[in-house]
């Protein structure tokens, strides 16, 4: 017996074939412009990602006026750096302090601030993260190798609407002499979701 699917398309899995078929049909029907697909992919592969958010955080760490603006009206402050639009229309920034650690989840789907963090990582969209973040955030943090002081409050923000949350991590000690670019290099994606802490200088 021949396995026809493998004989014909030995290097393609069924989802690959299905999505290719879909793209062909939609282009034939004139619903999509294949050039737009390429641009959409390129945008999220090369232009929109967590380095945008790192720049926002570094600015907030080094410019007190921007810091205050960011906490008061995050959408406008973030847009002033050129990051706005799809999945970041309504931004709120929540600040970590000595007393409170913030963590963001979307238990219902995968809501995430695309303009500043790019596309969500697989774990953010996964059942383990979405189920546990609201109940056992310290256990989730342990999966990331992060331990917080026992007396620190953990505040979880479930993104159930179109408001998108970005965590402003605490500026690491010893970073006083760093400029904005050096500071941005300390800011990890996970530190802006609240599942991690910034790097040490």
């Amino acid at each position, binding site marked *: 017996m021949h396995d026809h699917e493998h004989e014909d398309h030995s290097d393609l899995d069924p*989802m690959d*074939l299905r*999505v*290719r*078929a*879909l*793209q*062909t*049909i*939609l282009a*034939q*029907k*004139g*619903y*999509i*412009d294949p*050039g*737009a*697909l*390429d*641009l*959409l*992919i390129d*945008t999220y592969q090369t232009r929109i*990602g967590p380095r945008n958010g790192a720049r926002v955080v570094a600015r907030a760490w080094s410019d007190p006026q921007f810091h205050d603006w960011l906490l008061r009206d995050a959408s406008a402050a973030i847009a002033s750096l050129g990051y*706005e*639009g*799809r*999945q970041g*229309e*309504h931004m709120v920034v929540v600040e970590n302090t000595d007393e409170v650690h913030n963590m963001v989840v979307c*238990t219902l*789907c995968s809501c995430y601030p695309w303009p500043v963090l*790019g*596309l969500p*990582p*697989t774990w953010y969209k*996964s*059942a*383990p993260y*979405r*189920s546990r973040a*609201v*109940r*056992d955030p310290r256990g*989730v943090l342990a*999966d990331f190798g992060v331990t917080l002081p026992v*007396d*620190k*409050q*953990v*505040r979880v*923000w*479930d993104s*159930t*609407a*179109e*408001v998108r949350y970005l965590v402003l991590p605490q500026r690491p000690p010893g970073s006083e002499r760093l400029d904005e670019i050096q500071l941005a290099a300390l800011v990890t994606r*996970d530190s802006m979701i609240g*599942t991690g802490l910034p790097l040490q200088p």
Partner: protein
Amino acid sequence: MTYRSHADLGGQPGHGPVRPEAEGELWHASWEPQALALTLAMGATGSWNLDMSRAARETLPDYAQRSYYAIWIAALEKLMEERGQLTPAEIEAGRMLHAPASVKRVLHAGEVGAALARGSPTLRACPEKPLFAIGQRVRTRAEAVPHHTRLPGYVHGKCGVVERLHGCHVFPDAHAQGLGERPEALYTVVFEGEELWGADAAPGLRVSVDAWQSYLEAA
């Protein structure tokens, strides 16, 4: 007809550990970038709204067995089939078998940047003065509803405090059913861990959700 969401995962036990991944890891199969782009491009045709696409995804019976972009593709096919834009036979054949249905617009390459920058803001003028004030104690709706909604099960019937008011936003429950935007006040409501999870709640835990006004009553 009953409505069942398979996506409401908050607080569910038994899903195991989180598996972190490095910042640069974006795709996990060769078809995932196309799945993202097709979903965004078809969304831009205006054939459905975001809440309708969420409803299509969360009601997939095999939601839990599919990877995330596979959920997107299945929902995309469902939305298009419902609107006569695509047939299962066409997917099987891998080519167009029926004349295209009309779409409101097509996202052309030259418009991608502007469309992404514009996004789809949901803030609207408030039709009436918001009912609740910051600092007020409220109770969330306790019952399930037979349609798409954005109140997670784990906060049903719980008491919390209004912490922020985000103005009035498109109401997803109505929007997903094609009943219009019906904007309502949107609040961040914060709950103590013990209120949600009882005496064995993690110490110092507080959880908030963003809740539309009709999910809430004064407590």
